[in-house]
């Protein structure tokens, strides 16, 4: 009815927002494709031969094939058991760079 919300009896809250706790294989594939696209942008800027601080930082980011699946599909959170949550729970995650997490988590 209202986008991600599902209707339920008005006597019990009325609206329910359900999100699966992990990504489906399709969403994972699309996330990998987006990571590869950003890799190609960084590679194009590197191939242009220009030097700048932003490029030095971008080259320190891991590439898609170097990332463990845990980093591709989950993100650090201090609040949950295991200190990880699904990356899809981050707003605008498809348009943000979320490749690195604190060391050890």
């Amino acid at each position, binding site marked *: 009815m209202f986008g991600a919300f599902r209707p339920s009896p008005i006597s019990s809250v009325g609206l329910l927002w359900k999100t699966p706790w992990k990504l489906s294989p399709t969403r994972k594939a699309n996330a990998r494709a*987006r990571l590869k*696209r*950003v890799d*190609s*942008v*960084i590679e*194009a*800027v590197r*191939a*242009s*031969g*220009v*030097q*700048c*601080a*932003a*490029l030095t*930082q*971008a080259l320190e980011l891991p590439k898609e094939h170097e990332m463990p699946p845990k980093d591709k599909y989950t993100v650090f959170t201090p609040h949950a058991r295991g200190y990880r949550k699904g990356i899809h729970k981050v*707003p*605008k995650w*498809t*348009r*943000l*760079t979320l490749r690195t997490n604190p060391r050890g988590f």
Partner: protein
Amino acid sequence: MSSTLIRSSFMNHSRAFCLKRQISTSRVASLEAGPSSSSTSAPKTHYKITLQRSAIALPSRVKATLESLGIHRRLQTVYHEHNPINAGKILRVKELVTVENVSADEVRTKTEQRRERRPSRGFVVKGSKLSQEAL
């Protein structure tokens, strides 16, 4: 008398219109011939930036970066020189754009891109009976 004057002015207008179209198709032909021959050998001096994802609901500095690149809508293509400033701008919006390195003769302005999108007319106006009569 007045009717012939009106008719001649109409014919002049239509002939000028046909000539304009002729010029545009020939320019398109020259443009199409250019890049395919020199793309491999010429040095790459420009970024070809195309916006794939919008910046709606992203921080204002990201939107400001796209504005400074001259991008106003999704799938718009823009050409910028290789320099650290443009590289930094691209890297700030790297999640939203695709980038290709191109040579200087592949750079197109907005009008030129628009003209290239037009399909060919399939014919060329060689002349009209009125131009033959004038001779």
